[in-house]
C-alpha cells in the first residue's frame, strides 16, 4: 500500500522537509511517470526503517517546460536520481546537469513520450 500525497512545485521542498526525519525515513528514489504527451508525474518515494512496507510518495504533475525544484539540501542522495530524471524524461531539475546516462549522440529523453 502506497500512501500518496499530492503536492505542488511551489510546496514540494517544504512538504518533504516537514515530513523527512533522517533516522526514521529512507529515501528510495525519484520516479517519473508519463501521464500524457504534455504531462509527467514526478514522484519522491520514501520507506520507513524497520516498518513493514510503509511507503510514502509525494507527487506532482508537471508540464514539460516546468522546472522541478531540487531536494538535494534535504536529501543529498537525491542528486543521482534527479540527474536520471533529466536524462530520461527531458525535464529540467534545478541544479542537475544532463549527461549522467546518455551521451550527446544518444536518443534523447527516451522515456519522455508515452505509448508504444
Amino acid at each position, binding site marked *: 500500500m*502506497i500512501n500518496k500525497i499530492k503536492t505542488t512545485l511551489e510546496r514540494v521542498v517544504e512538504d518533504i522537509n516537514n515530513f523527512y526525519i533522517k533516522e526514521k525515513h529512507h529515501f*528510495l528514489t525519484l520516479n517519473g511517470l*508519463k501521464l500524457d504527451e504534455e504531462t509527467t508525474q514526478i514522484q519522491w518515494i520514501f520507506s520507513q526503517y524497520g516498518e513493514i512496507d510503509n511507503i510514502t510518495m509525494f507527487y506532482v504533475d508537471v508540464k514539460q517546460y516546468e522546472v522541478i525544484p531540487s531536494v538535494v539540501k534535504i536529501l543529498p*542522495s537525491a542528486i543521482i536520481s534527479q540527474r536520471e530524471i533529466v536524462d530520461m524524461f527531458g525535464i529540467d531539475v534545478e541544479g542537475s546537469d544532463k549527461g549522467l*546516462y*546518455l551521451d550527446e549522440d544518444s536518443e534523447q529523453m527516451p522515456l519522455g513520450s508515452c505509448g508504444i
Partner: protein
Amino acid sequence: MANKKIINIPLGSQHISLLEPVKFKFACENEKITEVDSDVGFVHRGIEKACTTKFKFDAVPYVVARICGLCAITHSLCYTTAVENLLEGEVPLKAKYLRILLVELDRIHSHMLCLSHTAENAGFEAMFMQIMGDREYVMDLQEKITGNRIQFDYVSIGGVNRDITSEIIKDIKTNLKIIKAKVDEYIYEFTNNWSLSLKFQDIGTLSLDEAYDYNAIGPLARAAGLKTDVRSETNYLPYDEVGYKMQLGNTGDIHGRNIVRLNEILNSIQMCENIVDGLPDGEIFTKLKGKPNGESLVRLEAPRGELMYYIKGDGKPFLNRVRIKTPTFACIPAFMEVFKGSNYADAPAILASFDPCMSCTAK
C-alpha cells in the same frame, strides 16, 4: 603559505581493480582525495523503455533477468512480485520457499565474489583464487536447481519453473556444509591476517551519520550500524519462518563490510538448510488471472542492497511504466562521500569493497 597543488586523477572507465565500466574523477591534494565526480552511463541499455514498448508484461521477467548476471533472480523476482500484487490468485507457499532458497544462494556467491575481489585488492591473490574456487560449490547448486550457473529464468509469474528433487536437496546439504567450513576460515583470515587488516581496517569508512545522510543500503549501511534490510521490512517472502537474522557492524570501514558479508553468508547458509529441511508440500506454480491494472511497488534485498520495482498498468498487455531502482545506483552519492579524505592508493580497495554492479546501474 604555498599554494595547494591539486592533481586530477581518473579511476576508470576501465580499471584493473574493477572490470566494469564506471569512471570516478578524483581531485587529489598530494595523495589525499578532496573532490569526486562520477560517470556511470557507459553501458545504458534502455531496459526500462523496452519493458513497456517491446515486451508484454508476462515476458518482462525474462528481460529484467538480463539486467545483471549475478542477481538475475532478485530482478525477476522483484518484478514478478510487483505484477502478482496486481493479479488475482496466490503464489503457493512451496514456490515462496524455493524463491528464498535461490535468492539466498545468489547472495552467498555474490558476497564471495566481492570478498575475493577485496582480497585481491589487498594483494592477496591466493585468497582471491581460493574464494573464487570455493564459489563454484554454489554455482553448481544453482545449475542443478535452475539449469544455469548464472542468469537463470527460475521465477515466473505465479511461482517457479522447476521443482527440486531429493538428490538436489542432498547436494545442497553437502555443498553448504563445505562452504560453511570455508567461510569460518575466511573469517579467521579477514580478521587476523596482517596484510588484510592493514589494508582494510579504518580505511574507506562510512559513519552511521553519513549512512543516514546518504541513504546507504545493503552491507554498506549495515557495516556502519544502520539497521536496515528489506528482508525485515517486507512480507512477500516468509523470511521470519526460515531463520533470517540481520547482521550489523559498527566500524563502517572495509573490514566491517567484509565481516558483515561473511556473517550474512553464514546466515544465508542457515536459511537454505532450514528451507530444504522444512520445504512445504504442494504445487510450485499457480496460474494467475488478469492483466496488471494499477500501480505496485515492491522492494527486495539484493546482495548489494535494496532493489525496487515500481510498475503501473492499465489492464493491457503492455505496462505504462517499469521503474527499476538498483542498489549500486542509489549508493553512488555515498560512495563519493567515502572516497573524500581517503588516499588515492586506497581507492581501488574501497571501490571493490562497495561491490558495485554497473550492469544493474546502467540498466
